[in-house]
């Protein structure tokens, strides 16, 4: 029960954080994808199984609240969670530099895939916003902070990472 509550609260809080962040920073050079970083955290700390589930849950909620296609974020966040989980043995995720560089690379891949999926499925012409170019950098900068905060949050709940 505690585990379920922990995951539900985490999903809820990050979702709110993303909504608030989008409201104030969306479309600017300082936009951050808190949820994507959190998905990577869960993938790296708890393995692909948890990473995928968290990615899918957040993705479907983001898709529902945004005005774009339903399923785009679900696919991309699921893939992000899976790939983070698969790389967890090759990476020392406790190092801030590892978190920064890995987040930067995944965000770049995320944007390429996002544009591809959007182009393939959307009836609208894709609009590339130049402000998006700074998102990988901003994500990379705040990644250690998010990792630290989520580790702290897990400690508060006494939820030690268990690998799946």
């Amino acid at each position, binding site marked *: 029960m505690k585990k379920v509550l922990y995951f539900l609260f985490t999903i809820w809080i990050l979702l709110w954080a993303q909504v608030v962040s989008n409201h104030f920073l969306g479309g600017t050079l300082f936009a951050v994808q808190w949820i994507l970083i959190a998905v990577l955290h869960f993938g790296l700390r708890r393995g692909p199984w948890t990473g995928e589930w968290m990615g899918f849950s957040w993705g479907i909620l983001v898709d529902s609240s945004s005005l*774009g296609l339903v399923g785009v974020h679900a696919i991309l966040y699921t893939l992000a969670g899976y790939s983070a989980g698969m790389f967890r043995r090759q990476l020392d995720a406790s190092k801030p530099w590892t978190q920064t560089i890995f987040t930067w690379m995944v965000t770049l891949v995320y944007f390429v895939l996002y544009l591809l999926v959007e182009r393939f499925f959307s009836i609208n012409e894709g609009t590339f916003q130049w402000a998006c170019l700074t998102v990988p950098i901003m994500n990379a900068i705040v990644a250690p902070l998010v990792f630290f905060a989520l580790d702290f949050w897990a400690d508060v709940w006494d939820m030690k990472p268990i690998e799946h």
Partner: protein
Amino acid sequence: MDWELYERYRSTVLLAVLLFVSSLFLAFQKTSSVQHLRAFLVRFTLPPQRLLVQIKSPASESSIPEPNEPAADTVPGTILDIGSHFSGEERRRIQILTEENARYRDLFQIRESKWPGAIVAHVAGRDPQRWFQEIVLDKGKEDGLKADFPVLAIVDGRETLIGRILEVSAHVSKVMLLQDSLSEVAATVPGANGEDGVVEGTNSHELVLKFLDRGSQVKIGDLVVTSGLGNAFPSGVPIGWVEGLEPDPRQLFMQAKLRPAARSNQIRVVLVLVL
């Protein structure tokens, strides 16, 4: 043996299942089941979006003044007289409320005088990835909204067209802004022999008025309004001002770049016309 195999590959199997489910959502976007799922899940994110809108626009519907009520800043001896008794923070808050008050007064005056049946709605959210294309309103089917209803904003005491309702669910609706490249509005330039054209979006701040004659009398600074052709929008509603003129890529017509009368990132409250 089978269990070991499952343990080994269960993440990959889960990945395949989740990707398959997501692809189904993508492929069947417009079906009612996906739309119902979306309407259900959006309840989890709408509360923070509404809260943020209320924080930015402190006046709620219950505090909206009636059109005939004088606003606080028009009553002698209110703000100017007591302003000195307030701290800087309080004065800023009063200033915000005063502006908000004026905006609502304009909106209600226009509604009363021109479109008594129009519905007032607030912008509940927008997607950064589709900033120039769509906004979400906090009113839906149960409030009387339907697809294709025109949406107006009030700028400097005057109504201006910003788009039309694209999709409606029970409590929220999606508006396609004029800036969307799929948006087309029949328009005219009243000051230039009533020349007609079509205003299209560009997925950016600008709009384009297409299909003007090569000998067009349209000039920079002219106001472009809806022509009412096709009955999709009422006639005479301002859309924007001409900022530049150039031949279209095929050199058959002239086209005008327009500056929209309402900047899409300043819209907080709108009027939805019931046709």
